């Protein structure tokens, strides 16, 4: 199967990409690694009239230390996130989570920015960056703005990103030695998570992100509040589903997902607490 016909434009810079998307409007889509978009286009679930290839904007592929956070260019590939010494040192949870995205071939092409902008609740990196308290930098016709990850996700495949804006950078706070855990529960290694949990803990501070537990990736704030308040891991994990609203599908009922979320959050916190 192949996509329906479209026009192909290539942007050499973020400014050019934004100008092109302004020109074509709703008809157009950005193409980064293409590993979320192209499969949907082949199945004809998406039929954009114009693709704006942004993958060649090489100055958006980087991983840099920047004070209290690490700045990651939106076009950095999963493979590079997974293998980055800087991330392994400062944000090991993210490097590890990236190693669970798709399969090796997917990670050679797919990008962190593409994954976050696609805003798929079943993806690993949106929930992971959410748990880490990341900030996303987006660029539009009127300049750049920063969006906290917790304010970014709106619904299934919907985010705060305006149609004429482009995600350019992901800023992830350094973990400063926090314990962490990534629990991806799926049937086959290559599958999306049925439920996933990204968690870190440093003393009474913690962050817990849930994959596929509702229309958006979810920050399990009730869990972190309970930890902050001195609750045991088991008691805190019991609150894992306080903010979630999972759906039922082929792989799992909502009830089963809630059960899994509680078990996996408990395990993740246990691992993070050691």
């Amino acid at each position, binding site marked *: 199967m192949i996509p329906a016909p479209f026009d192909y434009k290539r942007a050499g810079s973020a400014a050019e990409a934004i100008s092109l998307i302004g020109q074509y409007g709703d008809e157009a889509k950005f193409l980064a690694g293409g590993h979320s978009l192209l499969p949907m286009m082949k199945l004809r679930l998406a039929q954009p009239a114009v693709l704006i290839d942004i993958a060649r904007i090489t100055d958006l592929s980087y991983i840099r230390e920047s004070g209290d956070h690490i700045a990651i260019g939106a076009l950095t590939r999963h493979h590079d996130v997974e293998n980055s010494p800087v991330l392994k040192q400062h944000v090991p949870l993210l490097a590890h989570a990236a190693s669970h995205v798709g399969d090796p071939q997917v990670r050679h092409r797919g990008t962190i920015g593409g994954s976050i902008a696609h805003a798929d609740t079943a993806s690993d990196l949106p929930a992971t960056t959410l748990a880490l308290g990341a900030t996303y930098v987006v660029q539009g016709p009127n300049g750049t703005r920063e969006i906290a990850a917790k304010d970014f996700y709106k619904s299934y495949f919907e985010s705060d990103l305006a149609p004429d804006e482009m995600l350019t950078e992901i800023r992830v706070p350094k973990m400063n030695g926090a314990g962490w855990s990534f629990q991806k529960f799926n049937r*086959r290694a290559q599958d999306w998570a049925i439920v996933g949990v990204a968690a870190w803990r440093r003393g009474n501070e913690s962050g817990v992100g849930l994959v596929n537990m509702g229309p958006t990736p979810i920050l399990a704030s009730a869990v972190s509040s309970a930890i902050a308040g001195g609750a045991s891991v088991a008691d805190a994990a019991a609150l894992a589903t306080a903010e979630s609203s999972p759906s039922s599908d082929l792989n799992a009922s909502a009830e089963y997902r809630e059960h899994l979320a509680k078990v996996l959050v408990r395990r993740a916190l246990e691992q993070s607490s050691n």
Partner: protein
Amino acid sequence: MGGSILGERVLRKEDPKFLTSGGKYVDDLLDEPLLQGALHVTYARSTVAHGRINSIDTSEAAGMPGVVAIFTAADLGLQPVPSSFNPAAARTLLASDKVRYVGEPIAAIISETREQGEDAAEMVFADYDVLPAYTDMMAAMAPDATLIYEACGSNIVFDTTALGIPANTGDDFFKDCEVVVRGEFMNQRVAPCPLEVRGSAVAWADGRLHQWISTQHAQGAHAPVAATNGVDPSQVRILTPDVGGGFGAKIGAYPEELLLGVLSKRVGKPLRWRESRSESMVALGHGRAQFQRVVIGGSRDGKVTHYQLHAFQDSGAFVDMGTILAPFMTRPMSSGVYAIPNIECHTTSVVTNTTPTVAYRGAGRPEATAAIERAMDLFAYEIGKDAAEVRRMNLIPKFMEPHTTVVGQTYDVGDYEESLNRALAAADYAGWRRKQAERRASGNVKQIGIGVSVYVEITGGVGNGEQAKIEILDDGSALVYTGTSPHGQGHATSWAMLASEKTGIPIDRIDLVWGDTDLTPVGSGTMGSRSLQQGGNAVYSVAGTLVEKAKAVAARLLEANEADIVLDTDRAVFHVAGTPAVTKTWADLAVAEKANGGLSHDEYIGVPGATFPFGSHVAVVEVDTETGKVTHIAHTACDDAGRVLNPMLLEGQIHGGVAQGAAQALLEEVAYDGDGNPITSNLADYAFISAAELPSVTVVHMETPTPVNLIGAKGIGESGTIGSTPALQSAVVDAVSHLGVRNIEMPCTPQRVWAAIAAAKK
């Protein structure tokens, strides 16, 4: 003297090609002269599961770029074709009056490129009166159900009572049993998923139709293709390129293939067709889909005396091969490896609004094995005995003369207990039981489960022999022609080994010809694990006869008595006994026989019957009792396929079989929504098993030769699947049996395991 090549680990002759330039599959025939200028065919398919067709509007699609023509059943004047298994179930190759499943072809689009065809297929609009859709056999059998084939008068399209086999008698059957246990098991619908989907190409040249098909059985497609095209079979040539797997689903010719010649004639151009994976998941036949009601009874000390099985076979929307699997493959094997004195087996085949079912690796025997093995487990639980021990108590004792079961099936040879002993020993069954006990005692979240299955199956049940021809070329090399048809099994190597053993010609000088109905007009293809025991046997026999023919020629050339001629197979030369220095080579003989039509032998070699491979599998799983996740951590297979030709190939068949069995037990299931829409129609949604979900497999060899053929071989293609599936399912249940769980339906998904544990706790 060199030894025999038979039984050696001979590397595959065919591999360098596959590894360096790739196979030549049907979609790779870019250079084929007859196919130059070929157009592409795309089938528009039904989007509803059951409906009466009011109209099919192709006008918009016809105007799309590159579209050359579009045909519906009406355009082609297609007439209903009755099913071989129930003539009242007749249908046209493109749906005409009704559609019966999502994915049924309704129109054929001819376009310049494949992409244009895909674009146009989106623009074919059919108007339907939607009818109730049945994806469940019980609903389809309800008295007030809408009929899928009105002329059948029922959605039950085949029943063993119609063969004069009485229906099961009910509870009275078990009145003398101390222990009676019941179970209902769904042997779920799965997708065969050969990695190469279906494809075909056609060209008319000099009044003949040349058709390439990715098939397991070119000769089987020959007559139906000729009939569909309304031509004499002599006007049709079916060719088989490399085939990227079949697993039973590529045995029969499908409507999409049968129609290509007709379409090609209409547009006056050669045509190519290749389905997409998304199409393949709904239009390539599915496997299994059998619901089973079992009752097992016996004494409290462990002797099984009574067994009743009612198998409901889901035919899918057509009355195709799937229909007859339960009555003709499951039922005869219902006794399994056990000496059960009283058995009743009734089968009922039902049409539903789902993809038609066909043969899939094991085809009816995995279902028979699953039913009896699950029943054995239930019986063992009920009497509180070890499942392996209960099996041992009930096995048919070793027999080297034919043994006939209560259901009337005669097995050739068997030593089931030995296979069980070997498998248990190699698997360290006792050791795993100890580990299991430790985990149970410590209340570990991750529990160990051990599953044992003992099976016997029927192979070579299709065909009663095979054609083989060996031709010696002028350079002394040989061509072997076979009626079987490789798609991964390694025939090019195996058949060369068999011919080489007799002729002495090295295997790299023996090439294989198959799947071309001009060159190999007679053949039953590769299915039902028949190839080696019938096709290989024929090659071996024909090679022997050819050597005798060659000796006569050598005698003439050497001016000696035929009786004095010997073949030195080490050097592949003929000489007079005692005079090894004066020789004639195969090339000498071939050249000498040129005037007499060449040196070759062509013969159909019959076999007296099927063979009955058997074996035992031990599966070990770890089950996360909090999440329900199952990890397959060890697997031991002792499969006895009789005399082994090439252990490397045998092991490969077992490995692959085990993976497909594990896939059914743990992961794979074709699913539909309530309206009959498939929801597993691509490989992202359908849980096709990968390397990451499997352990390495320990293969234990055991060889009990069959007397049925010259080489003593039984089939091995399907054994691994038949043995592994119930072992895996049993292992999962075993892991949580101490919590009170007695059954978990396949596939044993995490949610099902979790739910079973939760239910047992209540």
